[in-house]
C-alpha cells in the first residue's frame, strides 16, 4: 500500500488492460480521429468479438470431443450436454483438460476465434457504413449508440450465451500457457494473453501509423476536413468510410476476443457504453485525436488512473459513506470535460503529415527556385 502507484506498473494485468485498450482506442482513432466518423457504438464491435471468443471454443470444442470423453461428461451431468446450460463450468473444466492434452487443437481454435472475430467485426463495420454514408454527424452517433445498446441487451438475454448468468469460457491459450509456465510461476495465463495482446497491439499500431503516413492517410483526413472537396477531386467518400469502419470494427472485435481469452469469463453487461465506448473516446481525446502515439499515451494515462482508484479503494473506503468504486465514473466524467475545456487538442496534438520526408521536400523546393523555408513548402 505504501507504493501503490509504482506497484501497479509491475502487475501483468495492468499491462493487459493497456494492450487491449490500446488496440480499441487505435481503431477508434482511425475512424473518429482521422476520418471523422463519430462512432459512438464502439462497444458493438468489441461485443461481437467477445461473443465469438465466448461461444466458439465452447460449442466447437464440445462437438470435437471424442465419444468416450463425452460419455464421461454425460454421466456427470445426467445426460445433458449443452455448453451454455446448467453445467457450463463443468464442461469448461473438461474442455480445459482436453485442450491441455491437445495443445495443437487449442492453438487452431484460438486462431479460428481471432479470424472469426475479425471477419464478424468487419461485417459490423460494413453494416454501420450504410447509415454512416447517409446521416448527419449527430444522427449517426445516435444510431450507432442505439445499435450497440440494443445488441448488448439481446446478448444479455440470449440463452445460448448463458443469459444473465454469463459463461465460463474454456482456455484456448493452453499451448502458450505451457511455454510461459516454464519461466514464471504466477499469473501464467495473464502473461501469455499479454504476450499475444502486445504483439497484436504492435502490429495494429505499425499498420495504422503506415496508413496515416501514406497517401491513404491524407485521403482519410481530407474526408474528415471537407467531404465535398474530397468528392469533387474524384474520391469515393462512401467507399472510404466503408473501408475505415470495416477495418476499425475488425480490430476492435479482435481486442474483444483477446479480452475474453484473457479473463475466461463472459458477461454481456461488461460490454457497456462506459467501458468500451466512452472510455475509449476519453483515451483518444486525452491523448490527441488523429495522433497514434498520443492515443497510446492517453490509453496509458487513463488505465493508470482507473487502476490506481481500484488499488487505493480499500485505503479510502473507511473515510467515505459510500463505495469508492463510484468515484471512478465521477472522476472520469469530470476529467473528460476538463480536458475538452483546457486542452481540446490532447496531450500530443495532431501533426501535419508531409507527403515526402521534410528534407526531400526542401530539396525539391530549392530546385524549383522557391525559398527553402518550411512555410513555402507546405503551400
Amino acid at each position, binding site marked *: 500500500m505504501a507504493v501503490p502507484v509504482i506497484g501497479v506498473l509491475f502487475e501483468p494485468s495492468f499491462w493487459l488492460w493497456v494492450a487491449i485498450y490500446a488496440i480499441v482506442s487505435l481503431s477508434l482513432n482511425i475512424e*473518429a480521429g482521422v476520418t*471523422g466518423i*463519430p462512432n*459512438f457504438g464502439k462497444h458493438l464491435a468489441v461485443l461481437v468479438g467477445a461473443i465469438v471468443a465466448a461461444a466458439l471454443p465452447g460449442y466447437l470444442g464440445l462437438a470435437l470431443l471424442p465419444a468416450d470423453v463425452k460419455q464421461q461428461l454425460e454421466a456427470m451431468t445426467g445426460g445433458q450436454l449443452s455448453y451454455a446450460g446448467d453445467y457450463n463450468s463443468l464442461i469448461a473444466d473438461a474442455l480445459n483438460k482436453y485442450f491441455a492434452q491437445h495443445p495443437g487443437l487449442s492453438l487452431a481454435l484460438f486462431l479460428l476465434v481471432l479470424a472469426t472475430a475479425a471477419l464478424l467485426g468487419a461485417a459490423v463495420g460494413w453494416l454501420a457504413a450504410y*447509415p454512416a454514408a*447517409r*446521416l448527419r*454527424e*449527430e*444522427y449517426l*452517433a*445516435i*444510431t450507432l*449508440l*442505439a*445499435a450497440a*445498446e*440494443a445488441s448488448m*441487451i*439481446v446478448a444479455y*438475454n440470449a440463452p445460448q450465451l448463458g443469459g444473465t448468468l454469463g459463461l465460463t469460457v474454456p482456455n484456448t491459450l493452453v499451448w502458450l500457457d505451457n511455454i510461459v509456465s516454464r519461466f514464471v510461476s504466477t499469473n501464467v495465463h495473464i502473461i501469455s494473453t499479454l504476450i499475444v495482446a502486445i504483439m497484436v497491439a504492435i502490429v495494429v499500431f505499425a499498420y495504422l501509423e503506415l496508413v496515416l503516413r501514406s497517401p491513404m492517410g491524407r485521403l482519410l483526413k481530407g474526408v474528415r476536413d471537407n467531404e465535398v472537396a474530397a468528392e469533387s477531386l474524384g474520391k469515393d467518400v462512401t467507399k472510404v468510410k466503408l473501408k475505415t469502419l470495416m477495418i476499425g470494427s475488425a480490430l476492435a472485435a479482435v481486442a474483444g476476443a483477446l479480452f475474453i481469452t484473457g479473463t475466461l469469463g463472459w458477461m454481456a453487461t461488461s460490454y457497456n*457504453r*462506459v467501458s468500451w*465506448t*466512452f472510455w475509449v*473516446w*476519453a483515451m483518444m*481525446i486525452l491523448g490527441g485525436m488523429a495522433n497514434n502515439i498520443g492515443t497510446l499515451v492517453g490509453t496509458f494515462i487513463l488505465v493508470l488512473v482507473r487502476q490506481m482508484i481500484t488499488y487505493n479503494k480499500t485505503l479510502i473506503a473507511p473515510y467515505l*459513506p*459510500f*463505495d469508492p468504486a*463510484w*468515484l*471512478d*465514473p*465521477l*472522476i*472520469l*466524467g*469530470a476529467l*473528460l*470535460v476538463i480536458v*475538452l*475545456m483546457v486542452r*481540446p487538442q490532447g496531450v500530443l496534438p495532431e501533426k501535419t503529415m508531409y507527403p515526402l520526408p521534410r528534407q526531400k521536400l526542401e530539396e525539391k523546393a530549392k530546385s524549383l527556385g522557391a525559398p527553402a523555408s518550411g512555410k513555402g513548402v507546405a503551400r
Partner: protein
Amino acid sequence: MPISLVYLENSLVYSNALVLLAIGLTMTYLTTKIPNFAHGSLAIVGAYLLFTVVAVYKASIALGFIAAFLAGAIVGLLEYLVVLRPLQRRGTDALGLMIATLGVDIFLIGALNIYADIVRDMHPVTGTSRDWSLRSFVLGRVAGLTEGTWISIGLVVASLVALYLLLTRTKFGVAMRASIENPQLAQVLGVNVDLVYAISWLIAGGLAGLAGGLMSFVMRINPATGSIEVVSVFAASIAGGLQSLLGGVVGGYLVGLSETVGTRLLGELLGITGIAAYRKVVSLALIVVVLLVAPEGIMGVNWRSILRKLKNRAKGERS
C-alpha cells in the same frame, strides 16, 4: 390471452414519461443544437428525489414531484451553464459537445450511485436504494384507473398546456420561438438568446425529472436506468422529427406504446414468450427506419400529399 388493463395502464404511464422526456430533448436540441446523451440520467435524478421524499421521508407524492422537477431542472441548467456553454464559447464542434454530454452522463451515474449508497445508510429501514420501484405507493384505484395512471395523465396534460401557453401567449415564448427560427436575427432584435437557451435547458431538465418520477411507478429504477432509457428517448424524438415539440409528443406515444403493447402483440402473434426483454430493439429499429426512410420524422412527412397520391392511384386502378 388478452392484454390486461394493468398492462395497458403501465404502458400508458411509460409512454407519458417518454413524452415528457422527448419534449425536453427536442427543446434543447432545437435551441442549442446539442443532442443531450445525459437526458436519461436527468430523469433518474428526478426519480431519486421522488424516492427520497416519498419513501424515505414519507412526505406526499405532490411534494415529491415538485422536488423531482426542481432537481432535474437544476441539474439540467448546470449541465448547460457549467459544461456545454463554456465549450460552445470555445468553439468546440458538435462531436466534442456530444462527447461532453456523454461525460456528464457518466458523471451523473457516478453521483447517483454515491447518493444511493448514502440514502441506504441514512435509512436502513427502506432496505434498498437500488432496483426500487414506487409501484406500491400508487396502486389505489380512482374511477377505474390507478392513482399512478391519473398522476401521469395529469402531469402530461399540465405540462403540455403550460408549455403551449408559455410558447404562444407570453413574450418569452415568442422570444424562444424566434431564437429557434433564427438566433442571429432574434439577437439583433434585442432577444436575450443566452437566457432563452438557459431556460430551455431548465424546462427540459425539469420535465425529465417529472418523467423519471413517473417511470418509477412502472419499472425498477437503479442509477444506470437512465443510460438505457435514453435510447428510447432518442427514438421518440427522432420519430417525431426533432423539429417540433408536437413531434416529441407523437414520437413519445409511438415509441412507448410500440415498445410495450407492440412487443406484447408481436410476441403473441409469433408465439414467443419473453420477447419483452428485447423491447429496446424496437426503439433501435424505429430510429433506423425513420432516419433512412423519412429523416424529417413523422411530423415532417407530408401526409396529405401521400394520401392524395394513394387516392389518385386507387382511382386510376378503378377506371
